[in-house]
């Protein structure tokens, strides 16, 4: 155990901090819109604070992968309150997948505009009949000349309404075993035959969509990987998604917001933070926040050393999403009746964010691999328990 960064990384941290101080007036303001976000992204790529390890040939900064430097960047941005670079499923999921499995032409066509935010992507994986059992998906792509013709439906497609492009799993080999009949296609959301319907959720917003395909024609060349290998390609992508859910830095930031709320708010003249029952719940959550923070450092050390993350990594999504949900729950309870105010009104706290998070986080506990699927993964891969089988 040695938590000092050492001179090389300290110098790097100072460089990142220096950049953020020097460019504070260039942080895009909330009103700056898409143009502001894209200009900021371009500046970040230029300095290696976004698209850091993507090769320069594809529009990235071209640095060697260095997990600790990536973390130093993330922490410095959080500490400075600086907007991070663009995220989204194109950058976090499609780009790494293309780098690993795309053709040279696909890489040259799509990676750079995706990194710069000029092309926005959505993900077409889940279907109404294929959730946890994703490999049973039934959206069909049949051959017709040089094209595939796609018919079917996707669901839980975030950003589908804004997306220019979709990466999509379709069944091309209906007679093959379920994992072997899937292909991974990329195509424009403006292709005729695509209909996007917003999916209203319990939050009152429409954070997801349904996407319907009716005779959508896609050139066969727009496949990533080989025909029938889409499951393997998708697993490459999902591996990149899993790391995003349950991030301990985000949990720590949310906990700090909860403490600030409980210090500011009063009931009958007593600060919420001085209420012994609420204080006990707050302290119980703080212990969990710290455990996940240090667990994150342990996983990070393993990654730097090239070790498989093991149980410490497998539990992050399950525990992190649940903890976020519990932090929001305590904020609502601490606010009492004021905790149920929502959407508008002069008494609303934090724009209703705590209720929205409480509900949306339940969605995250279910999404990206349900809590129950996570427990199967922990038990089978982490503890070596047998898969559910037929009676002997």
């Amino acid at each position, binding site marked *: 155990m040695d938590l000092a960064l050492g001179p090389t990384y300290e110098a790097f941290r100072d460089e990142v901090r220096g950049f953020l101080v020097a460019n504070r007036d260039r942080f895009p303001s909330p009103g700056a819109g898409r143009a502001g976000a894209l200009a900021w992204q371009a500046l970040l790529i230029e300095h290696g604070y976004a698209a850091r390890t993507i090769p320069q040939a594809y529009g990235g900064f071209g640095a060697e992968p260095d997990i600790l430097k990536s973390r130093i960047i993330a922490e410095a941005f959080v500490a400075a309150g600086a907007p991070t670079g663009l995220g989204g499923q194109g950058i976090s999921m499609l780009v790494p997948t293309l780098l690993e499995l795309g053709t040279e032409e696909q890489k040259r066509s799509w990676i750079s505009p995706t990194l710069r935010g000029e092309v926005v992507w959505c993900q077409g994986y889940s279907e109404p009949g294929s959730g946890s059992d994703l490999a049973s998906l039934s959206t069909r792509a049949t051959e017709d000349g040089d094209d595939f013709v796609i018919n079917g439906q996707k669901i839980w497609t975030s950003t589908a309404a804004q997306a220019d492009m979709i990466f999509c799993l379709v069944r091309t080999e209906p007679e093959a075993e379920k994992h072997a009949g899937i292909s991974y296609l990329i195509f424009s959301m403006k292709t005729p035959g695509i209909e996007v319907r917003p999916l209203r959720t319990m939050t009152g917003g429409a954070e997801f969509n349904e996407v319907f395909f009716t005779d959508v024609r896609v050139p066969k060349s727009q496949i990533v990987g080989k025909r029938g290998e889409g499951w393997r390609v998708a697993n490459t992508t999902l591996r990149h998604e899993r790391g995003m859910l349950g991030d301990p830095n985000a949990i720590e930031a949310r906990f700090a917001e909860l403490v600030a709320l409980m210090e500011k708010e009063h009931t009958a003249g007593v600060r919420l933070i001085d209420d012994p029952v609420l204080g006990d719940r707050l302290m119980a959550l703080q212990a969990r926040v710290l455990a996940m923070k240090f667990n994150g*450092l342990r996983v990070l050390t393993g990654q730097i050393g090239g070790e498989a993350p093991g149980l410490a990594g497998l539990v992050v999504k399950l*525990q992190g999403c649940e903890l976020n949900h519990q932090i929001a729950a305590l904020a609502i309870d601490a606010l009492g009746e004021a905790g149920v105010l929502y959407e508008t009104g002069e008494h609303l706290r934090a724009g209703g964010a705590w209720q929205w998070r409480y509900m949306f986080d339940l969605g995250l506990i279910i999404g990206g691999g349900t809590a*129950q699927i996570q427990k199967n993964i922990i038990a089978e891969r982490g503890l070596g328990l047998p898969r559910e089988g037929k009676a002997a």
Partner: protein
Amino acid sequence: MDFALSPDQRLMQDSLTGVLARAAPLARVRSFAGSGEPVAGDVWAELTALGVPGMLIAEEHGGLGLKLLDMALAAEAIGSCVAPSPFLGSAVLAPLALALAGSPAQQAAWLPKLAAGEITAGAVLHEAVAGARDAPGVEASDGKLTGASMFAVDTPGADLLVVADRAGRLWLIEGSAADIVLLPTIDATRRFAEVRFDHAAAEPLAGADALPALRDAAFVILAADMLGAAQAMLDKAVAYAKERRQFGRPIGSFQAVKHLCAEMAAELEPCRALVWYAAYAFDHAPAEAPLVAAHAKAHLSEVSRFVARTATEVHGGMGFTDLLGLHFWFKRVGLDRQLLGGPENVRSHAARLQGLAA
């Protein structure tokens, strides 16, 4: 940045676990539990041969000069075997009290003997740390101790006692000067006592206000003991779920059982990093140490209680029997949880440390 154990630390923990598996198997835990032995001398002799009593003691006094993280790793190994040993009193609290607050003469008189395992030591801290309940605690006047203290640690058979009085000052006194009355508890793997003094002459440990550090160290070591015991229970539950068959298949293939095991692992695995950091902070980040020590103690209390009951359930009816012996682990974490303050008590301390409570 390296958040991991060193190869030496892994080796030390492995060899300790190996020695304890031989020296303190379940049969030995059982015989100690059923006996009136104040100390399991044979187990302590094996630990002494490895240098455990002197781990925290400076090399100039015959010890190994290690840190609290090393002690936590040893405590985890001891907890995983529910081994009877006066580790907390003799290897952690007495050496630490002497190192932090003892005079050079006191250190020279006692530390070499502790390091060599020639004597054992107990700690009488309960009221000063967790508040008085059944006994008033100890008053000091003119260098003499009077009063009674509950839940004293490792005092039966101890040659030396470290005592905190009600004002939080520390005292050194020989075990023979106290009336040590065994307290029967749920946990028969260790000995706890009510310790009474009647105008007993004691030496002050006056070099520093060391009680907060003793409290923090005790929190970390108890958390590590719970980590080891809970991990052992989880391991036993997983092994049982793989081997036990019902309805024609291993019960661990049923999600009802599999998910219990996953929930235990999901709760327990992040605790490992929390305990490591709390121990590391004690020596390397003193400003953070009291808070993370308290959180480690309180959080491991909650998680190990959950693991203890769940692992027992995974074992079905067998888990409830004496035959399997799982109850020794169940009771060990049950005691660690309450000792020096239950989780609510410790969390209110954690809040006060941050100025968050009224």
